[in-house]
């Protein structure tokens, strides 16, 4: 495999989304080519850093505002309906 081919296939390699014989060839190339190894390591670290992003929660009042908007929509779509308790 050439360096270009390795670079083009790096994402599939990182996602373990390729045939075993290609994996073996990629592993061999990365083992001996320091440029491709740096490409692999930094791309892999980039993905790890973003996976580390903390989970977000909704701001205060966000749920209540959503429920209210849906209630208004309900009254528009189904004028005869009554307010749902929540």
């Amino acid at each position, binding site marked *: 495999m050439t360096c270009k081919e390795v670079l083009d296939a790096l994402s599939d390699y990182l996602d373990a989304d390729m045939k075993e014989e290609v994996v073996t060839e990629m592993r061999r190339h990365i083992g001996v080519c320091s440029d491709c190894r*740096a490409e692999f*390591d*930094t791309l892999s*670290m*980039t993905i790890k*850093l*973003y996976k580390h992003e903390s989970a977000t929660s909704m701001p205060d009042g966000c749920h209540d505002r959503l429920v209210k908007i*849906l209630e208004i929509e309900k009254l528009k779509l189904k004028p005869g309906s009554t307010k749902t*308790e929540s």
Partner: protein
Amino acid sequence: MNPRIEEALTTLGDEVLVRKAQEDDDRAFGELVSRYETKVYSLALKMVRNPEDAEDVLQDTFLRAYRGIKSFKGNSTFSTWIYRITANSALMRLRKKQLPTVSIEDADEREAPVSIADWSPGPVDQLLNQELQQVMDEAIEALPAEFRQVFVLRDIEEISNAEVAEILDLSVAAVKSRLHRARLKVRNRLAAYFNENQKQKRAMGAQR
């Protein structure tokens, strides 16, 4: 709501709740909202990158879902359907803001810098600080909207290529291609930051 009804609804699967919601059971729709609102908000926030727009996307998503629930045929799961509405709503908002975009087809420039210093050895916890977090945010903000969608769904939300393809109505090959290019763009931003950091450290070392 009657606690017994509420409890009963929380034990039902999405499919049953969808069916009930399609039969005008608003409590069932309410349960779907409770189940998915945080996920939808989180996905929206990661795409539009500010809380006000994320809340607008959240509201728009559930309004569309409420209006369209009867036309949901169940060919995909409810979660895929609601994520698809979220992704579309976020994309429209980004386009309205005229986010700098490049044509996806034209963006085939060489993504990798000529030489990349390997900044990867080092535990994630040690690397992550406020400054890096800001650089990571900027790197996502700099992505064209269509790349950002794929990157957020795949690498932050950790949704499979096949499901991302379904959510965005793309082929798996297109998802993989956009993902790879998005990753390289993001990585290059981070690489520039780390390279600059290393230069500064070396300069400070030389002054001592």
